């Protein structure tokens, strides 16, 4: 049922989602921490900016990324000067686009978990002699783990599910930028419904299992997916 090109597309999708999720956790964690703790007047604008991908059409994000990352773009100029070439239509370009596009799905659950944590655990750790980094890694992070896991699963699943941004920035190069969703689009365009079915059902199955796992995980804690309180009372 699944042809060689389908498997290549699935493998590429999995790689993209893994790398993107890893990048998102590294980038999203400090942003979430800042948003949860700051009293800066820049909080609202930054929070809005992070949430933009939730409401913007993916094509719009893809369009601007194409301009910025392209040879004449701000970022494109820098990457060219650094000898990395331009990012559109490369795997790295896909990662950059996916990170931006899935950012709110990772930042928001982690931010909620950090917020629900409150100040008491960190203050307690401080009076026990733990410095700021120590407090983050030994208290804040372990206590926010359900939120972090939710963020990772959502980031991964959302990256697997993206289409518009990938198509704009990556195009449709088998083995390089052709992810599963784009492959389905191509099969439908060429009226290969059987092939489209095979890949689509695989994605339906994956999405269900990922979300089921998440709800089972959260259900055991009596919280909903996007609840403010990612951890037990």
């Amino acid at each position, binding site marked *: 049922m699944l042809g060689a090109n389908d498997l290549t597309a699935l493998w590429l999708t999995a790689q993209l989602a893994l790398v993107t999720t890893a990048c998102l956790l590294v980038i999203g964690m400090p942003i979430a921490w800042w948003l949860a703790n700051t009293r800066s007047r820049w909080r609202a604008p930054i929070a809005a900016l992070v949430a933009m991908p939730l409401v913007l059409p993916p094509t719009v994000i893809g369009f601007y990324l194409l301009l910025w990352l392209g040879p004449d773009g701000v970022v494109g100029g820098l990457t060219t000067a650094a000898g990395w070439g331009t990012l559109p239509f490369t795997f790295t370009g896909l990662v950059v686009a996916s990170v931006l596009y899935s950012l709110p799905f990772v930042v928001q659950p982690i931010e909620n978990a950090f917020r629900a944590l409150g100040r*008491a*655990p960190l*203050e*307690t*750790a*401080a*009076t*026990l*002699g*733990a*410095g*700021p980094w*120590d*407090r983050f890694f*030994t*208290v804040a992070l*372990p*206590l926010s*783990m359900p939120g972090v896991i939710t963020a990772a699963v959502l980031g991964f699943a959302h990256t697997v599910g993206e289409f518009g941004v990938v198509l704009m920035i990556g195009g449709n190069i088998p083995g390089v930028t052709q992810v599963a969703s784009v492959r389905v689009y191509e099969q439908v365009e060429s009226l290969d419904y059987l092939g489209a079915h095979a890949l689509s059902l695989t994605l339906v199955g994956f999405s269900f299992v990922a979300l089921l796992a998440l709800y089972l995980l959260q259900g055991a804690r009596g919280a909903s997916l996007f609840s403010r309180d990612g951890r*037990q009372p």
Partner: protein
Amino acid sequence: MIEIALRAGSPTQAFSLEVNAEIPGSGTTAVFGPSGAGKTTLLRAIAGLAEACSGRIVVSGEVWLDDKRAVPAHQRAVGYVAQTPLLFDHLDVAGNLRYAQRRAGEPETGRFDELVALFDLEALLVRRIEALSGGERQRVAMARALLRRPRLLLLDEPVSAIDVARRDEVLPYIDALARQAGLPVLYVSHDIDEVVRLADQVLLLEAGRVAGYGAVTDVLGTHTAGQFADAAGSVVDATVTGIESQWSLAAVTFADATLSVPATGFDVGDRVRVRILARDVSLALAVPDATSIQNALRGRVVGIEDTLEPAMARVTLDVGGQTVLARVTHRAVASLTLAPGGDVVALVKTAALARRHGSLSA
């Protein structure tokens, strides 16, 4: 010694705290006052957790706060136990204790075992935090605070979150803790009985200002205005000199006076603290023949003051060198023609006993 000259709270806030005090380097100092007086803010400021505070804090020669710098909380060696202590519920009891021990840079396990024994935690070590009762949590929190090797212990109403009936399960540990650690302890409370039982000094806080500071026996007798009127009374140090077990009474003696007080569980020779509320003391010119009040102390009137209640006066008596307060009506003062210097008999209806530990009052 602990030197505190502290201002906390910004001008924009309605509440501000201003405390100047020198606290001895050992023994228990109660911080006593009504809710909202700034007791917790004071402790948080000392621990380095309060924002917007300025002034000077020096603990055993180490400057924690002055004009130039504020040492961050994690570098201040305090043992802080909050009202509802927070235990890390991603760790078990042993994990919570080790968390403090590791950061205190303490290689030997002797002290760990010692504190586990002191607080009876052996059976709890592998327990999850959710499975602990309120009293057990307090004991774990106190052991954890001591494993941090503090120079100063800050206890914020450590028993207020525990049922009244179960407080006696925790209070002895607090008593033991102060003695064992040989550390200065600041003990926040709004319960006069706890203060009498545990403290050597008391710092009265009212609306963010120090309303009185000194030895418990002095301060609780003299600072009885306003918010502290309910607690008006005298505290005397005494010794148990007799037990009448068939009446559940103990005879306690101070100066040349003896009181019979309802008490069980005391032995002859125990050092105790006796608290006599002003409202439990009546006055007479001679010892009456037959009355249900069996405690009659001979004394001399030292002073007569008005109270916030127009009908009532507070009479300060000297009973063998100790101060006893009586709350009587102005009419009684007039009909007995009480005046400073006059002899009088204080009829004490009842008094409360608290055990004292010799090593506490150094």
